[in-house]
Each structure stands twice: as C-alpha cells, then as structure tokens.
C-alpha cells in the first residue's frame, strides 16, 4: 500500500526461484571450500598426484560456479525482494544494514581468496596456497553465519520485537540450530559435488577413491545429522511460538509425528504448501541417501555423470523443499510478529521501545490504523472509489460494479502477494459457490490474536499467537467493514455469483456491525 505493486502473478515465485538457486550454490560454496582445502592437504600429505590433479580441476569449476552463479544470484535476491516486498526489504535493511556491511567485508575477502586460490596453483608455495584456501572457507562460512542471523530473525525475531536492537534480533531462538543445520548441509553438498566431478573422470581408481572418501566421509554422515538438526530446529521454532506442528498437520514436532502427518495429510488442515514441501524434502533426501549407499556399495569404480547428476538433482530438490518449508513456516508473516506478507504491520507490542518523545513516528500501515481508516485511505497508489461510497450507490448495477472494482483493488492490495486468481494458490476455486455474507464471515476470521493458552487477546500482546482459519496461516483482513464487504462482493463474483452486490447490504453484514467485526482496538 505504501509502495506500488509489481503486478506479476505470484511474485513470491520469483523470489523462490532465485533464492533456491542461490541457497543451493552458496551452501555448496561453503562446503566446497572446506572440501577443496582438506582434499588438497590430504593429497599433498600422501603425495597423491591423482587426487591433487582432481582437486585442481575441481577448483576451476568451483570458481565458475560460485563466483559467477553464486554471487550474481545473491545480488538477484536483493533485486527480487526489493521488487516483491519493498516494505519488508526497507525494514530489513534499516535494521540490519551493518550486518550486511559486515557480510560484505567477508564477501570481498572470499572472492579474492577464491581467485588467488585458483590462479595460484602453479605460482604459490603449497603452504601459502592452503592458507588461501582456508581464508576462503572461513570467510565463506562467516558470510553464512551472518546471513543466517537475518534469515532466522525473519521467522523468529526474538527479543527484537520489544527491544528493537540488532543483536536481540540476530541471536534469536532459531539462530543456533539453523546455523548448525546449514553447516551440515554445506558439508553434505560438498560431498555430492565431489562425486559429480569425479563421475566425469575416466579413471576408475580416482572414482573409487572419491566414492569412498566423499560418499562415506562427507555425504552419508551428513545424511544422518541433518535430519537430527532439523528436529532441533523445529523444536526451537515451536518454542518461539511458530505452530510448526499445526502447519505440518502433525501432533508434535518429533520426527515420527511429522512423518506420520506428512504421509497421511489430506490438505484439510494446516498449510498444504508447507506439507508438500516437507514431504518433497524427505523423499528426496531419502533418495540421496539410498543412491549414495548404492554408489559406494555397488558402483564404486564406474559411476557416470547421469547417476551423479540425478543425485545432485535430488539434493537440490531436498534443499529447495526445505527452504520452501521454512518460508512457509514463517507465513503469514514476512517478518515474524512484525509485518505480514502484504506489508501490514502489527502495532508495537506493549512495552516496546519507542522513538524519543520529540520525534513523531506514525505508522499508517499498522493493522489497527488500517482497520480504523480503511486500507484505501492509505493506499498511495490506488485509484478506486472508497468502499463505503461504492456501497452507498443507489442504482444496483452501478453499485455492484463499483463494489466489484473496489474489491478487486483490495484483493490486489491485501492478497496478491500470495494468491493469484486462477494460477498458483488460485483464489477462484477457494471461493467458488460462496455467498457474499459467507465470505464476509470468513474474512472476519482469517486470523485472530490469541495468547499462548489460546485465549483471545489484543494484537499488541507481547506473547501474541495467531489462530488462523482452518490453520491456513493467513493474515487478518486489514481493512474496515465497508472494505470487507466490497472484497466479499468481488470474491463471490469470482466464485460465480453474478448477483453479488446487487442486493443492498443486509443488517447481517452492514458496515457498522457484522460478523468478524472484531475491531480489536489497541491502546
């Protein structure tokens, strides 16, 4: 509402595509760095020319993949989030610019180290070359350690919500489990990559060496510890108020409960997208484990690029699913407890740090303000009739038409960050056949503020949880009553009711009082 909307359908997919590519490459860039130095050291210690030549070839591909694809997709995430979520990006950059600046110092060092490592194979003494390799790995991991703080903050902002300080947001509840898990993932991916690279070689001795070394030493151990750290992570998230179990449709966050839920989920409760993503991850990760075992046990000397290519693809799918699930655990927030995906903010919790008294800080995009004034009063870029005016038109046809248009604009403002009309998370099938008044009721119940015990509370409760309609992880409707009605008219028209908006609004859903009118006022 504050920023114009980039009107591509399901813009979140643009972010998802860029970031999954980036996450895959960047984790691999960290683990690969470790793999290169450790393997170079091993080859030099054992005077193993075969292995040394292999690491060396690996390093060129590594340079091309991480420096170019990794770095540019990283920049791509900036471009994508700025286009799709300008409101959230602006908030993040104001909070964490020094985190990113610190990461940037590591990024420079990392890039130079990668280049010097590559160009230095014939030029640097062995010890210096290894040191440069270590510098690469340490700075690459340092970048990961910084970015993880910001990423986990977006889901579990920790003490930041009230303290508004960098470190209370950075060192949040899921930071440590997430960093540990990501580090393990890096190591596992490096092993996958080593296998992929060895599969191009025609030398069975090298293949078998790498299969044992990378397959048994790098991939399989990680296949065990990554799921364990995932459980730790989910438990930490649940402790921080993320209804992880509910979202996955499970009874708890233990592995058996989650597995059971995922394999029996029918999509009627929880968040189906997250469930599908989690299931994909589990299936793909199992595939990675089985394929690696098979490779080590049966095909050690003659595995080819097709086999390892499939293995890499499965690893990518497993990771992509994991990232997708993480993004969905965060829903309906873009920044947990602070900002919803559509850019609407919660009022600051009771006791939060505020600006000094002489500085006036207004927030027209806070939920309470929008519910009071209506979204359109603050929608800088909208050019439609206010909902109340549209509803007051005398002539039924003109009224229905005006309500439809206003509703369509409201849909754009409040819903299109996630929903399309007919495509990804399409809304039409979801509203098919529903009446305007039924939809009004649903809109009033999308999300309600409850406390830890599940009792109704205010939006500024520092211990806020969301009770969402059928566990669907939706944000609350952020407009006034008239707007809720206009949106309901639009949606029921989409759902096939051509007469929506023709009848004058009944007392049932009148702008003054209606279902879901829970105008939770906050001080």
């Amino acid at each position, binding site marked *: 509402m504050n*920023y114009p909307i980039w009107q591509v359908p399901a813009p979140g997919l643009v972010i998802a595509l860029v970031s999954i590519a980036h996450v895959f490459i960047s984790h691999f860039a960290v683990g690969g760095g470790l793999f290169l130095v450790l393997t170079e050291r091993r080859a030099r210690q054992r005077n193993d020319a075969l292995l040394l030549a292999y690491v060396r070839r690996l390093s060129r591909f590594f340079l091309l993949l991480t420096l170019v694809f990794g770095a540019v997709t990283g920049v791509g995430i900036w471009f994508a989030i700025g286009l799709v979520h300008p409101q959230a990006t602006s908030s993040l*950059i104001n909070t964490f610019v020094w*985190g990113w600046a610190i990461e940037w*110092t590591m990024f420079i060092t990392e890039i130079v180290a990668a280049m010097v490592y590559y160009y230095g194979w014939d030029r*640097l003494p062995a010890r210096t070359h290894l040191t440069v390799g270590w510098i690469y790995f340490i700075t690459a991991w340092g970048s990961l350690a910084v970015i993880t703080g910001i990423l986990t903050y977006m889901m579990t902002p920790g003490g930041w919500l009230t303290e508004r300080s960098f470190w209370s947001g950075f060192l949040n509840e899921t930071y440590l489990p997430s960093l540990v898990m990501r580090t393990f993932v890096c190591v596992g991916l490096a092993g996958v990559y080593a296998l992929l690279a060895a599969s191009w070689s025609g030398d069975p001795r090298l293949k078998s060496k790498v299969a044992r070394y990378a397959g048994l030493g790098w991939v399989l151990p990680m296949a065990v510890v990554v799921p364990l750290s995932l459980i730790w992570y989910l438990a930490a998230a649940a402790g921080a108020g993320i209804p992880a179990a509910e979202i996955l449709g499970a009874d708890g966050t233990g592995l058996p409960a989650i597995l059971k839920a995922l394999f029996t989920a029918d999509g009627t409760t929880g968040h189906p997208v997250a469930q599908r993503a989690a299931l994909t991850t589990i299936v793909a990760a199992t595939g990675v484990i089985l394929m690696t075992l098979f490779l080590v046990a049966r095909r050690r000397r003659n595995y080819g690029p097709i086999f390892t290519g499939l293995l890499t693809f499965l690893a990518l799918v497993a990771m992509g699913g994991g990232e997708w699930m993480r993004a969905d655990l965060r829903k309906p927030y873009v920044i947990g407890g602070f900002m919803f995906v559509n850019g609407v903010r919660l009022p600051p919790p009771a006791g939060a740090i505020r*600006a000094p008294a002489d*500085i006036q800080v207004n927030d027209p995009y806070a939920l309470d303000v929008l519910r009071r004034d209506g979204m359109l009063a603050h929608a800088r870029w909208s*050019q439609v009739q206010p909902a109340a005016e549209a509803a007051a038109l005398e002539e039924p046809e003109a009224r229905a038409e005006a309500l439809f248009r206003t509703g369509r604009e409201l849909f754009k403002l409040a819903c299109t960050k996630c929903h399309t009309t007919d495509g990804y998370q399409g809304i039409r099938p979801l509203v098919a056949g529903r009446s305007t008044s039924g939809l009004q009721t649903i809109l009033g119940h999308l999300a309600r503020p409850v406390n830890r015990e599940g009792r109704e509370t205010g939006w500024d409760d520092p211990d806020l949880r969301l009770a969402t309609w059928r566990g669907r992880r939706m944000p609350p409707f952020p407009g006034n009553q008239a707007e809720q009605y206009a949106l309901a008219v639009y949606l029921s028209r989409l759902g096939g009711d051509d007469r929506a908006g023709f009848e004058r609004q009944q007392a049932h859903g009148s702008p003054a009082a209606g279902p879901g009118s829970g105008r939770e006022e906050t001080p």
Partner: protein
Amino acid sequence: MNGFPLSPVPFPDPVPQPAPAWILWGLLVFTFMLHLLAMNFVVGGSVIGAVTARLGRRAGRPHHMALVRWLTDAMPIALAATITFGVAPLLFLQVLYGRLFFTSSVLMGWFWFAVVPLVMVAYYGTYLLAFKSASLGHWGSWIRWLTIFIFLVIGFIFANNMSLMLRPDLFRAIYADGGTAHGNFGDPTLWPRYLHLMLAAVAIGGMWVSGYGLICRPRRPEFGEWAMRYGARWFSGVTAVNLFMGFWFLFSLPGETMARFMGPVPVATFVLGLGIFAGMTTMTLMFLAANAPRPSPLVGCGIGGLLVTVVCMVLVRDQVRRGALATMNFEPVQWVEPQWFNIILFLVLLVAGTLTVVWMVRALVLAGRPGTEDGPVP
C-alpha cells in the same frame, strides 16, 4: 475517486535509522566510486578491447594483440570487482533513499530485474573469452561484442533507475499505465546522463590502458610506452566529445537543480567547477602524452588529475540528487539510533579484510608467473 491526496513518496518505516546519515552517505559515495572505477574498466576496457582486436588483425601489430590479451584475461576479475563494489552502495542507497529507490525499481519491474540474468550471461561470456579464446575462432569476436552490448544495456538500466528515483512526479503516471516493465524514457536527463557516463567509461578505460602501460614499462619498455600513448589517445579523444555530453546533461536538468551549480549552493558550484577544470587538464595532459616521446610523467599526472575529476563528478552527481530531493521536499528520517558497536565492528573487519586481500594478492604477484625463474614450480 480519491484523487490521490497522498504524496507519491512512500512513508518511512517506523524503525530507527541505524547510523547518522553522514556515515551512510560517506560510505555510499566512497564505495560507489570504487564501483565506478571497476565498471569503467569493464565497459571501457571491453570496448577498447574489441576495437583493438580488430585493428590488431593486420600483420605486424603485436602490441595490439598483447593489450587485447591482457584486457581479456583481466575482464572476469574486473567484473567481479564491479559486482562486489556494486553491492555496497546498493546497501547504503537503500537505507538513505529506499523510499524512492524501491518505488522506481518496482515501477521498472522486469526491466530492472533483467540486470541479474544479463550480468550472469555477460560474466560467463568474459570467462569464455578469458579461458577459451583460442578455441572460439571467429565466435570470439561475436561474444566480445555481445558482452559489450550487454554491459551497455546494464548501464542503461541503471541510468533509468537512478534518474527515475529522482522523479516522483512521474511515478503515478507510470504506475497507471499498468504492465510489469517500464523505463524512464520520458525524462530529458536520461540520455545525456547515460551517454555522459558511458563515454566517461570508455575514456577511463583508456586511462586503465595507459596505467597498465606505465606498470609494464620497466620490464617491457616498448610495449609499455605504446600502451601509454594508445590509452592516452582513447582518453583524450573520447573526453573531448564527452565535454559536450556533460554540458548537455547540465542543461537538461530541471531549472532548480541546474541553478544549484550556478552559485547559490557553493559546494555544488565548486565541485562542478573543479571537476570541469580537472577534467580538461587531464584531457590536455593525456593529449600531450599521446604524442610524447616519453609519456610516463604525463600519464602519472594524468592519473592524478583523473582521480580528482572522478571525485568531483561523483559529488556533482550527488548534488544533482540533492537538488531533486530538495525539490520534492524529501524528509530525511528523524529517528536515528546508531548501532555504534556494529559500525566499529564493520570498520575493523573492513580493515582486516583489506589487509588479508593485500596479503593474498601480494603473495600471488611476488610468486611471479608460472615457469619463470622467480616463481616456484611444483
């Protein structure tokens, strides 16, 4: 219709700005300058490289080919530097002027996003040329021109966004137009701004060539002197044309902004005056260097003059932005709570990182080329 009672400039976030504006601004200007110098190598170096490769096809021009080889080999590194030094100003720009920058980016949509795949394709192109040019045959020159074209397009996209973010008065009309990709084509400053920047890039690419000649001279005197003169010719010739572009840009600016340079804002007047003076001096020095029997001292002074010019011109560009911000009554954020600890941590790590980089590069340079007697051969 509610007739837009609201300003087209978005509302600031209800979170504090994490540093005083002057620190963010200083870092923005400084890191942008680094970005500019690297970008000039990329744009100017590849234009000069392609032209030189053509000229060098005639027999008996080994210097041309040696220069092309160097430009080609260094290009991936220069591009990495351009990107890396581009990230930092992007951060600080978003903190200081995010309200304008995000808005203009969203309006540009796909056009803006296109930078990402374009950089990627061009990047692989430069690596292909650096690693495989022998086996590329005549495809090599196609790839060369393709990467140049892409660089010029990327620069154009940036010029669109940097000029559009200064025109909130255009935002509404562009948004009302619908669609998911737009440029700032209606703005009279767009073309002079862009052409001025790109010609400067080619000129400064020439200065990079002269600088390289200066470095090479002790070991390869003949090539070194040739490269200095050759680069000097590029610099002085292109800059002579670019002076006109600069004035075109100046006169295309909106009246109030242009007026800043004519006295009422002393800083603006000073940096523009000094910039023009330094630029013309540098041009003269390089013109002389292009024809001098011993160009080294002239090139050395020229590099100094150029650095003064670049600093001034970056500040002129900043004054253009300040003029636009003043016209639109852009309010800086009031609530500032500096994260001093993080700022210091950043500076410490920046120094540590720089020292590490220097150490690594020094080790590589001191080790010499493979196969020469001063480099170890494993």
